[in-house]
């Protein structure tokens, strides 16, 4: 299956702490993408990492990719209440993008 599986399913932290969520997948990929969904809204693309990259940064986001373990992690540093959302990973090697159930992050003020 091309689907990514996020772990943990739910995460609750205090504002200012770092949040780490993980993604595992089973097939070979061209890239892996992370998306955020605020309650009731459509998903928003956050960051993409290619299969030949090991780490990528964008603002407070840091993504790592280990293709030998077929896993990725998303780190959000210095979290804010506005980061409260669900986060989804999507491994990609074809035209379709299949999402897992996501990690629900709650950041308490």
């Amino acid at each position, binding site marked *: 299956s091309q689907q990514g599986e996020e772990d943990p399913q739910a995460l609750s932290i205090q504002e200012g702490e770092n949040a780490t969520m993980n993604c595992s997948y089973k097939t070979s990929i061209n890239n892996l993408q992370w998306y955020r969904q605020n309650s009731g809204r459509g*998903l*928003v693309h956050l960051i*993409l990492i290619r299969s030949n990259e090991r780490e990528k940064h964008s603002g407070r986001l840091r993504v790592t990719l280990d293709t030998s373990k077929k896993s990725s992690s998303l780190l959000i540093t210095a979290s804010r209440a506005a980061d409260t959302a669900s986060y989804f990973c999507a491994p990609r090697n074809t*035209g*379709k993008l299949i*999402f897992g159930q996501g990690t629900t992050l709650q950041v308490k003020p």
Partner: protein
Amino acid sequence: NAGVTQTPKFRVLKTGQSMTLLCAQDMNHEYMYWYRQDPGMGLRLIHYSVGEGTTAKGEVPDGYNVSRLKKQNFLLGLESAAPSQTSVYFCASGGSDRSSGANVLTFGAGSRLTVL
């Protein structure tokens, strides 16, 4: 530049009725997708299209049909609605990410469908 627009935003149907959800994008994207999301769940891919005139099945295609007659539009049809199709439906289009050049998705705001 509207991005991805879905209509209608809300709809209530009776079992057995038919309806069409419209997705329109103004970004000249080749790829378009229809997903459904049930409460507390992730997104499941219904159908997708890699270009005008093409469609392909996703994870949960049964009970749905799609058409991509024009590049900018992707229609999702329910021929005979069932209560199990009560869900929030999201359309997305796929285009090049500015930083990586890879294909990333832009989502619409969703269409909430209730089948009684």
